[in-house]
């Protein structure tokens, strides 16, 4: 009922190509951004910033990284955490060993290095598909974890292997406060989401989906599978790398291999399953779900009489519910939360009609 489309006709391809063709959508987006950048910092408290919003944003970025690879290019991967780790440690070491290097630049370079590693482990994808490829990415997970723990050079010969990340100074501004961390993360994430959206709507994005939907046909119309797949790994690695840096620097405040173990990879995978494979918005929804669901559950159990469920059991219940939800999603809504949103929007456009 919010949509008034009469007279919104596009007279040029540029207008037709816009990410948000309808005025109402653009307006909504700006309102949302305004809310996130201005209202939230004013209203939110430290708990919300550092315990909910920051991880939510970072995970949604990681989700986008994996979604580009799995949801768009159709290459299954369980190495997400590994690439995040590479990004984080690269950024840390750059900060450590290159004096005066701006923080964001080292984030970026960290992403690039992660991309290179991702390409290395993506090479098998040229010969193998599906589950075989899955194992290749698992190899990345284990090798990277081992290398980072084995060679103390990466952790600056720190005994515990756990290093506190340097303060978040950008152009003289200190973003170390929870609010600052939130704003920094938000800015980076929004920027990268914009680029990601452009990407999947561009030629490359179409080629990826072509490879995903039917690779033989893709090859027959002249798409170079090698290039498409490796680019998918590289760009996905870049996104994951930056997500890793943010995870370590802006969320954990420490850089440690165990922040990036296999379960993190699974977490990211679940984000895109729940959020929706082959969707950009979905990563955000999925991450929100993953982050908020346990908190919600804990609060619900808080209402139950004390001692009925102890914390250990709560964790198990969480696990079971989680697994159940994953399966439920795959059965009921394989396209995830993003699909639900799309349906709602579609219905809103034609309201009060049904289609």
């Amino acid at each position, binding site marked *: 009922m919010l949509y008034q489309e009469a007279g919104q006709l596009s007279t040029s391809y540029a207008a037709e190509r816009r990410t948000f063709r309808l005025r109402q959508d653009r307006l909504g987006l700006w309102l949302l951004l305004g809310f996130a950048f201005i209202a939230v910092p004013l209203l939110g408290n430290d708990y919300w910033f550092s315990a909910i919003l920051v991880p939510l944003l970072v995970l949604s970025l990681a989700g986008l990284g994996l979604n580009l690879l799995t949801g768009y290019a159709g290459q299954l991967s369980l190495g997400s955490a590994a690439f995040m780790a590479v990004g984080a440690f690269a950024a840390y070491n750059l900060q450590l060993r290159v004096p005066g290097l701006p923080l964001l630049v080292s984030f970026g370079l960290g992403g690039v290095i992660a991309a290179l590693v991702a390409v290395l482990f993506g090479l098998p994808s040229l010969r193998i598909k599906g589950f075989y490829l899955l194992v290749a990415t698992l190899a990345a997970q284990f090798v990277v974890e081992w290398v980072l723990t084995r060679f103390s050079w990466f952790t600056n010969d720190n005994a515990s292997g756990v290093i506190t990340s340097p303060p978040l100074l950008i152009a003289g501004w200190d973003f170390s406060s929870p609010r600052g961390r939130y704003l920094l993360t938000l800015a980076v994430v929004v920027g990268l989401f914009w680029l990601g959206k*452009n990407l999947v709507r561009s030629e490359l994005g179409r080629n990826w989906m072509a490879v995903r939907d*039917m690779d033989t046909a893709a090859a027959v119309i002249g798409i170079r599978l090698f290039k498409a797949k490796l680019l998918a790994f590289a760009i996905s690695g870049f996104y994951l790398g930056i997500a890793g840096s943010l995870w370590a620097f802006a969320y954990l405040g420490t850089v440690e291999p165990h922040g990036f173990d296999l379960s993190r990879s699974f977490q990211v995978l679940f984000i895109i399953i729940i959020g929706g494979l082959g969707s950009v918005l979905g990563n955000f929804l999925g991450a929100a779900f993953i982050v908020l669901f346990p908190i919600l559950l804990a609060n619900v159990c808080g209402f139950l009489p004390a001692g009925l469920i102890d914390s250990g059991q709560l964790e198990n219940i969480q696990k079971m519910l989680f697994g159940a939800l994953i399966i439920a999603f795959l059965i009921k809504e394989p396209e995830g939360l993003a699909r639900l949103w799309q349906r709602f929007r579609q219905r809103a456009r034609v309201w009060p009609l049904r289609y």
Partner: protein
Amino acid sequence: MSAITESVLLRLDDISLSFKGVKAITSISFAVKTGEICALIGPNGAGKSSLLNVINGVYQAQSGSVSYAGQTRRRMRPHQAAERGIARTFQNIALFKGMSVLDNVLTGRNLKRRSSWVEQMLRLGRAPREDDEQRRYAETIIEFLRIHPWRHVLVGKLSYGLQKRVELARALAAEPTLLLLDEPMAGMNAEEKTEMTQFIRDINREFGTTVVLIEHDIGVVMGLCDHVVVLDYGRKIGDGTPEQVRANPEVIAAYLGTRRSRAEAR
């Protein structure tokens, strides 16, 4: 009718292909002239599709050579074939189900791209202008094949006949010199068939595209094609104009007869 020149565009020389020892194609040779519409006919399992797959490099022939546009290649990858102007459609539609009609057609033009993915991501430099050009050409094809009402519909939601047309559009978007059509009219009703026949004829005339197609409907083939090659059990048993082929006793025995009875059986 189309402007058939005497120059040969495609020549197959003694092609043989087998899967795990099972012979699919046995030493087949024939030539397709530039600008003609050539039909491969033959009973199911005669090796027609396999032959197309050899021509555009999906399969590699064990022996023999394919010479196209003057160059002879021992082996060729599918995307190389595409780069050299060979486009095709598939027997059972191979569209990208997750994408709209327009996007499917646009993928067909991926070889016409010059701008890098970075430019496209940042929407910088020549990318936007190129996007316009790509879209314009895609739209001309879409209007040419009369699928513009479904421009923004996901291909999965379209009827079978329309999907066939979209696939043709995707192939056509690459501005091919040689168009391989694997049963473009399979499973269509009479009306859709006549439509598709018109489209193929017009493509051949207006774009000067050479067409090699596989079709079971003899009526269509005889009406549409300048040149017919008949296969049976992986061997060539007939090659010539529709009239010659119709006259060829071996063909009648091996093929037309069986087709007739099959047609009646339907």
